[in-house]
């Protein structure tokens, strides 16, 4: 038995409907997938943009980055498209190799390393009470330490004439 629809007896609308199933694209499922993963995609896109900016700053090619990351150039190509669901391992590698902020640990480490000396370090010698600095500690840390541990000065107050007068 022939199950094929008879095109000659079909109306235009029926012909059209018969085409839909054959010609349907995956557009709707792709759209719904993008909407569902929007928050994750946004993060992947931000990372991709940071990587591209850093590659430009360093004058590196994607191939060179692939070598540094010990991955294939195709893998790097996927990263910079900003569509990949990156593993934690890839994120850590990118952060270490390119020194770009990807994970919260990047800033946490920076805060631990922070000292006022870093702010004052303007590529020139700062002579602010340099002689008081002990090795390895920041100027302000040293100053605060001195300030808080200093014994208060004892001031001898002699009996005032005012009391005598009264």
């Amino acid at each position, binding site marked *: 038995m022939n199950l094929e629809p008879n095109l000659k007896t079909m109306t235009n609308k029926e012909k059209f409907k018969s085409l839909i199933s054959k010609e349907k694209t995956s557009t*709707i499922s*792709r759209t719904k997938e993008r*909407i569902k993963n929007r928050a994750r995609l946004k993060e992947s896109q931000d990372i991709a943009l940071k990587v*591209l900016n850093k590659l430009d700053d360093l004058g590196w090619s994607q191939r060179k980055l692939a070598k540094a990351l010990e991955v294939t150039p195709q893998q790097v190509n996927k990263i910079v498209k900003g569509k990949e669901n990156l593993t934690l391992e890839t994120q850590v590698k990118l952060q270490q190799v390119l020194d770009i902020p990807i994970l919260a640990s990047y800033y946490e480490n920076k805060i631990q390393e922070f000292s006022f000396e870093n702010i004052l370090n303007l590529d020139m010698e700062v002579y602010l009470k340099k002689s008081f600095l002990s090795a390895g500690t920041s100027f302000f840390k040293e100053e605060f330490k001195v300030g808080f541990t200093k014994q208060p000065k004892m001031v001898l107050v002699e009996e005032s004439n005012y009391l005598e007068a009264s």
Partner: protein
Amino acid sequence: MKIVDIFAKKLCSIAYKIKGSDAYDICEYDRLLDLWTDVSYLYQYAKSNNVKDINKFVKARLKDATLIDDFLNELIEDNIPLDKYFHQLDNNETGFKLLSLRKGKTSKYDGLRFYAIKIDDDCFLITGGAIKMSFKNKDHQDTREEMKKIKMVKAFLQKNDVVDIESFYEFRTELENYDK
């Protein structure tokens, strides 16, 4: 070229043949959305077009692409009329026009454009799209190219007597049988 359905009978898109091949590319809607959500493509595009703030440009186009996704989703969920998205390409066009040329944009701030032909009420055929880089379409190579494509598809439809939705379906069936 091939016509494929995106959503029911309302939204269709052209799929062109891949250059130097007999195989068809994915439809224009999918192809463009793939590009407009590709950070490295947008980054390179901004550089080759001498965009001053590349990061701002990339982020703005990615945002525009999410709005297009939302539009299509809204279309599916709420069955909104397509005329809300596809505006007349010719700002001076008034009244009813057969196979009216249209531009798709989510708002006046949208930097992405789909180009389509209005086949009938609430039935559109996407012919392509581009990142809007100049006020006038003739002032940028990509939009110039898209204008050629939309006119070519319109001429093709007219040559095959497609004037409304009925003749469009009829022509599609013929085209489908011809492709076989």
